[in-house]
């Protein structure tokens, strides 16, 4: 059960280290749950590109006698993986109250995010060779993946644009979102190329901040402050396709196996899902994940996204906080945090009327690490 959610100020928040954000997020999550820091006996930490979050967070928070402590890293799938490990820990009695936290602060005043995300070029060795070849960072790698899909299935940049537009419309309803001005398809098509086929509005933004959740047992959560959010199912899938010859690269992701596995564990069908929060480093990531989860047949993600099902008032309630494209970029904590908000019924203007079952994805590497969570507002939902 997820009993607490802590979110720091997110976005262009300067002067604080990732460690500062992580500690702030855990304090907020404990407070949100109605717990004292001293109640926490398990801590799982994770960090973004700038690092700076580690098991040292225990000391920063003054936590003593922890029964579970580890740093986890499977990129954008880490948040889902942390909730899985924390759930196993509380089910087994390994620990009773586990805080899971992510924090990062890549943004600096007067310096573009690209300067942070683009300076990981190694000057020597195999990674140096990749960089010297021009293949630097996530943008071209995901662009190469998306192009495969476009060439195979006829997917178009306009179809990507519908995903960007829909998420911006959701962000307009989310006070915590960084980009809330509505955009049109023409705005999307006019935005500059980052790595063709991706335009600027196909790419996630970059944020400073931290988000934590508190995982505990249903019994413990019953007496706490917030409506408990039950973790009904989970699964990971790590295909091992990246930088290897693989016929599925860019076409099929780990979501294709993890999604059905998590739903089976939860005992719910895709048709029972009320709200969908998908990892969206790029518009294309959303499209391919929708296909892999089975919301539409493989190859039809483009027409599906453009069919009018997305956005507020649409049939598919997807990335209802604006996601990482328009909301805030906290890796897997972005879809997870919005899922908790929706499952609780705390979404304000953007709250889904039906929110019994929420499907959450995490994606990392280059479509090479995946975690699915099935959350529910009631333990026996669906």
């Amino acid at each position, binding site marked *: 059960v997820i009993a607490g959610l802590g979110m720091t100020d997110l976005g262009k928040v300067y002067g604080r280290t990732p460690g500062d954000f992580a500690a702030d997020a855990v304090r907020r999550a404990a407070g949100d749950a109605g717990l004292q820091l001293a109640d926490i006996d398990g801590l799982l930490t994770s960090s973004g590109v700038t690092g700076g979050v580690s098991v040292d967070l225990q000391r920063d928070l003054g936590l003593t006698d922890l029964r579970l402590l580890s740093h986890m890293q499977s990129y954008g799938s880490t948040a889902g993986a942390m909730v899985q490990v924390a759930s196993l820990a509380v089910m087994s009695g390994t620990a009773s109250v586990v805080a899971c936290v992510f924090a990062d602060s890549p943004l600096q005043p007067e310096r573009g995010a690209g300067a942070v995300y683009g300076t990981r*070029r190694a*000057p*020597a*060795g*195999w990674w*140096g*060779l*990749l*960089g*010297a*070849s*021009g*293949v*630097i960072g996530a*943008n*071209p790698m995901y*662009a*190469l*993946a*998306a*192009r*495969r899909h476009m*060439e195979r299935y006829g997917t178009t940049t306009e179809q990507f644009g519908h995903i960007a537009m829909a998420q911006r419309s959701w962000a307009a309803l989310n006070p915590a979102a960084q980009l809330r001005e509505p955009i049109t398809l023409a705005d999307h098509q006019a935005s*500059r*190329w*980052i*790595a*063709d*086929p*991706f335009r600027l509005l196909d790419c996630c933004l970059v944020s400073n901040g931290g988000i934590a959740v508190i995982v505990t047992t249903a019994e413990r959560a019953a007496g706490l402050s917030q409506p408990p959010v039950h973790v009904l199912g989970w699964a990971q899938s790590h295909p091992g396709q990246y*930088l*290897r*010859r*693989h016929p599925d*690269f*860019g076409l099929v992701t780990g979501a294709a196996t993890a999604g059905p596995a998590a739903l089976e564990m939860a005992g719910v069908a895709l048709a029972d899902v009320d709200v969908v929060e998908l990892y969206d480093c790029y518009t294309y990531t959303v499209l391919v994940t929708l296909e892999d989860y089975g919301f539409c047949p493989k190859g039809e993600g483009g027409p599906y996204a453009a069919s009018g099902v997305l956005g507020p008032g649409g049939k598919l309630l997807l990335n209802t906080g604006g996601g990482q494209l328009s909301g805030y970029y906290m890796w897997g904590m972005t879809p997870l945090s919005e899922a908790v908000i929706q499952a609780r019924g705390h979404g304000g203007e953007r709250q889904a009327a039906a929110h019994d079952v929420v499907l959450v994805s995490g994606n990392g590497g280059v479509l090479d690490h995946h975690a699915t969570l099935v959350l529910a507002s009631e333990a026996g939902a669906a």
Partner: protein
Amino acid sequence: MTVGPVARDAATAEFFDATAAGKFELRRCPAGHFSEPPAAQCTTCASTSLHWEAASGGATLVSWAVAWSRPATGEPQPTVLVIAELDEGPWWWSQLADADPANLAVGQRLRIEFRRAGPEHEAVPVFALA
């Protein structure tokens, strides 16, 4: 369209010796499987008895993207980046020299060429339309 500087380390020394001689070398195991150059074990059978063997230099286009750099001054510069399937099987990620991205198609024939950022830097394999 240019390649960047890259230096050798212990793992890449033999590979760059070969690129300096105009050869792209792959890893090959005793069973005959080819693996991509950085492989420490065979990607088919996990053998660690790998030796270097020159690829033919022929390849086909798997995917491409056009990265737009934003230099401090001047216009944005495009670089066509590709995944290519070498005729021996492994895939390789690099740039496509002197190509118009509007006229590319999956399966197009490519060949490996080499470029250097400068005389003091290692030769970097790139692809060109065959």
